[in-house]
């Protein structure tokens, strides 16, 4: 019997190509989107799941008691070895240190130089804990001796043009030379580890002088089966108490199970991997996928029931021939199943075609192969079944329960109830899609606001050139002088960091308040750098231009926030002694206006520039006079190369850097916008179906009206008005909802736009225009039809 059902279903599809293609198109598009989103979600959820020890790996977290309760995803060097020794549940541990605490490394091979942003120092237990295998080299010997490295296959090819690199050497930062003792296959995309190069931990200075105070090592424990997180935390606390004096215990320890590492780490500092997921993003995209599927299913229902007048005859006849309601329900489900199956296949193919584009937008690296993975295929089957059940429910139950007698006697089917249901479905669809439009509009507004907001300094044409690879201070000075003579360069300075980049966290004390101080960011820089970045002085002066050898005085330029914390006016603050840096000789010389040194999500806090020689000055800050950016960069580069030919030229622009802070929002907005447009399109297909249905239902009425003298425009109006009403109702529901949701989203930003009437007017206008266009197509078709035709068929 199923065969016969499918046969009828197929002939129905063939018999009305327009309807069928609209239906399949709507479902295909939605399923393609849903497939992409599911792939994304699946990929995010699959992180680290392939590891054989996944249930017994924990990452150590360090919770600072001060510094705004920051939590670090890293720990001190002593934690791992001590824990192995003192906590029986910890069977093994591996420590990772990213080169330069996250700064890129400069690699020199025999022939060429490279910038390597994924270079780690790691313990040899890495192999056991993270299932890492070597294609070449011996696991037992790799990463044991100092100055040895293992590198990934693609990195080997990048450096040496071949993966046959055992025994070859390269230089890091012009300082140490390491020998390659192993080659591993490139790490899978869905594992948190992202290294291209691992250097033996024994090479790192932490191996020679492990401490309890510097918490820069990402540390993973391998534990015995069934070890509880709370128990581990308690034992770590005891361990800390036993081994660290109270005044050195500025933090407490906790652990994070591996399955939380990928998605639940956005609040952590110092997580080294470039692959960071966000459960928020996964959640919002899951909702989007669900919403789009629901819109598609509603669409299917609307389009199918739109043809119910025609189909109902078949139902009536089948019933008189002995078909039971059960038979008919099966039938309609078979038909829906066929269409959704076709759509899923097409949708998956479409998704496959657009996966690279999606990867690009989402900033992910989801491999094609994920499409063929068993869990994904089974979830697709699930989607197929659910959408078939959902989309098929209305036609199946509604049409199958029609009374045969009523249909065959030519009675109009479609009770008030079913008409209302269909209308509600359209309202629901439009509510969902207009909410999407408003949401995307607001996100864009906020991103634009961020881009255009006065950050309190001059971010345009500001270039930061990394000088980490230059080991000689003389060369840095030489380079600075040479660049400042260029006509295209306005000014040059050196600094530890710049806005958009985290610098050092310290505390400043207010002697009057006994509150433990305020967390501040300190940036070691020279006067030129402050000037180059365009900081706005509101009192005092800049740091001294030159600082003589042996001068123990420390000058500090602070921002307004610090002065406010100290309870002074900017003018009063000048010359005041403060307690912030090591030593006892620091004075405020200048106050600059507040500026946004971090993402606009965070309110501005204390920020200070100083000239104490604690941190390295890692960047040249260069202000360009813009005429032709391309040649200017080349000019700067050639000057750079003339002084330090072996150091790679690594630069960035401050405004680009700042933009990167909002990458996730930008990705979500772009994905959201793309898919919202498609959702609106699909919703319009549904409206089209409903319009066609009404035109069909009111066929006779329209003909009679025409015979009685109604004009075409009158009839178009008659048919369109009802739909516009539905869209208006949807807007009324969507707007307050969208307002609340988006307002909530904006709360994440310390600096944000107010939601104005613009997105609402725009959305209302767009929705109404698009729906008029859709409906009038059907209405005009009905209105210009020859009335005799439809009257005759009765």
């Amino acid at each position: 019997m199923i065969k016969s059902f499918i046969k009828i279903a197929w002939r129905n599809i063939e018999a009305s190509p327009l309807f069928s293609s609209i239906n399949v198109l709507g479902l295909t598009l939605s399923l393609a989107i849903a497939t992409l989103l599911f792939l994304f979600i699946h990929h995010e959820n699959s992180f680290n799941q392939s590891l054989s020890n996944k249930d017994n790996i924990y990452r150590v977290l360090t919770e600072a008691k001060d510094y705004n309760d920051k939590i670090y995803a890293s720990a001190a060097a002593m934690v791992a070895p001590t824990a192995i020794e003192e906590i029986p549940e910890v069977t093994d541990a591996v420590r990772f240190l990213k080169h330069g605490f996250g700064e890129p490394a400069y690699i020199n091979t025999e022939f060429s130089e490279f910038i390597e942003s994924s270079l780690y120092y790691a313990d040899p237990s890495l192999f056991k804990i993270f299932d890492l295998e070597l294609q070449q080299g011996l696991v037992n010997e790799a990463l044991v001796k100092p100055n040895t490295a293992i590198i990934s296959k693609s990195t080997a090819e990048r450096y040496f043009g071949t993966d046959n690199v055992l025994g070859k050497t390269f230089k890091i930062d012009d300082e140490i030379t390491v020998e390659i003792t192993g080659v591993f296959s490139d790490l899978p995309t869905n594992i948190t580890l992202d290294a291209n190069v691992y250097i033996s931990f024994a090479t790192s200075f932490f191996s020679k002088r492990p401490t309890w105070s510097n918490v820069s090592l990402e540390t993973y424990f391998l534990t015995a089966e069934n070890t509880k997180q709370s128990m581990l935390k308690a034992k770590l606390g005891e361990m800390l108490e036993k081994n660290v004096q109270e005044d050195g215990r500025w933090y407490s320890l906790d652990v994070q199970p591996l399955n939380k590492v990928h998605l639940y780490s956005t609040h952590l500092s110092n997580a080294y991997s470039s692959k960071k997921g966000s459960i928020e993003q996964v959640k919002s995209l899951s909702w989007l996928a669900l919403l789009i599927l629901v819109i598609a299913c509603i669409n299917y229902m609307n389009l199918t029931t739109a043809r119910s007048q025609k189909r109902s005859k078949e139902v009536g006849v089948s019933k008189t021939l002995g078909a039971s309601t059960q038979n008919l329900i099966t039938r309609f489900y078979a038909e829906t199943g066929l269409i959704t199956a076709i759509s899923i296949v097409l949708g998956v193919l479409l998704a496959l075609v657009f996966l690279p584009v999606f990867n690009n937008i989402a900033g992910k690296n989801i491999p094609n192969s994920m499409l063929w993975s068993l869990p994904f295929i089974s979830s697709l089957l699930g989607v197929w079944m659910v959408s078939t059940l959902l989309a098929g429910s209305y036609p199946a139950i509604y049409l199958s329960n029609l009374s045969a007698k009523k249909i065959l006697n030519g009675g109009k089917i479609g009770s008030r109830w079913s008409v209302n249901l269909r209308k509600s479905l359209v309202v629901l669809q439009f509510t969902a899609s207009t909410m999407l439009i408003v949401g995307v509009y607001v996100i864009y507004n906020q991103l634009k606001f961020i881009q255009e907001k006065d950050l309190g300094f001059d971010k345009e044409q500001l270039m930061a050139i990394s000088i980490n690879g230059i080991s000689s201070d003389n060369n840095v000075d030489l380079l600075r002088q040479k660049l400042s003579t260029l006509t295209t360069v306005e000014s040059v300075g050196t600094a530890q960091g710049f806005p958009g980049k985290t610098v050092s966290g310290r505390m400043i004390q207010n002697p009057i308040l006994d509150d433990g101080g305020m967390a501040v960011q300190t940036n070691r820089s020279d006067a030129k750098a402050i000037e180059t970045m365009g900081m706005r002085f509101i009192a005092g002066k800049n740091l001294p231009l030159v600082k003589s050898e042996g001068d123990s005085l420390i000058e500090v330029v602070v921002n307004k926030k610090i002065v406010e914390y100290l309870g002074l006016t900017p003018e009063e603050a000048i010359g005041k002694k403060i307690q912030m840096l090591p030593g006892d000789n620091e004075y405020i010389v200048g106050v600059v206006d507040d500026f946004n040194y971090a993402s606009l999500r965070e309110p501005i806090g204390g920020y200070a520039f100083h000239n104490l020689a604690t941190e390295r000055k890692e960047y040249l800050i260069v202000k360009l006079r813009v005429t032709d950016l391309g040649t200017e960069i080349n000019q700067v580069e050639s000057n750079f190369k003339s002084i330090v030919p072996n150091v790679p030229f690594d630069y960035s622009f401050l405004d680009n850097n700042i933009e990167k802070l909002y990458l996730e929002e930008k990705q979500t907005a772009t994905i959201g916008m793309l898919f919202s447009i498609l959702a609106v399109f699909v919703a319009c297909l549904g409206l089209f179906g409903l319009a066609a249905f009404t035109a069909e239902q009111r066929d006779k009425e329209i003909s009679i009206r025409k015979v009685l003298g109604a004009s075409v425009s009158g009839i178009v109006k008659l048919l369109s008005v009802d739909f516009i009403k539905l869209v208006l109702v949807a807007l009324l529901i969507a707007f307050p909802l969208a307002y609340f949701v988006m307002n909530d989203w904006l709360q994440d930003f310390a600096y944000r736009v107010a939601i104005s009437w613009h997105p609402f007017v725009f959305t209302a206008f767009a929705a109404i225009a698009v729906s008029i266009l859709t409906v009038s197509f059907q209405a005009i078709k009905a209105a210009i039809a020859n009335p005799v035709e439809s009257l005759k068929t009765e």
Partner: protein
Amino acid sequence: MVNKLLSLNEATRTVNSGSNKVTLLDNINLQVNEGEFISLMGPSGSGKSTLLNCIGMLDSFTGGGYTFLGEPVHSMKEKNRSKLYKEYIGFVFQAYHLIDELTVWENIETPLLYKSVKSSERKGLVADMLDRFNIVGKKDLFPMQLSGGQQQLVGIARALIGKPKLILADEPTGNLNSKQSTEIMELFSDLNKEGVTIIQATHSEKNASYGSRIVNLLDGKIVEE
């Protein structure tokens, strides 16, 4: 010996139209024996179609008794009722009501599908039927490709395929010209001679004359037999 096929005992059908109760069928008493060929006559709105629908169990009486092959239809569950008409009743409609998406062969086959007849058996039965009605050459055509008379032939073939005891025909020639009408009526006559009981609703005296008995309806009542 003559077997009783069905009997109606003071069968009534009313509907509510707004606040008014409208009586469509009023205390109908009718006995039908196997092998009869009954013509229901009467003007439009006299209740012919309603009576046919009720007998055919597409609709039900609201009062009185209906016994079919000794079983009380009026007190039967929907499921058993459906089983009963699936087994014993075939319908022929004025507007043919063939399924447009199916070929002639498939249309005739459909009732067998709902009776869960095996594929090989279905093939034989449908082939016999096509043969008998001389429409073998048309088996792969769709209803739209046939003339009205041919469509009605398919409709009758479809009604007969399940070997029903009773055929209910609601103005079976209403959409046909006189030549086609004659052919169809002669076919009914032949079927009746083979033992199939037929009840037809008709306006035409000529068609009624093919039957063995005429029942006249007026305003939902049997006025004359």
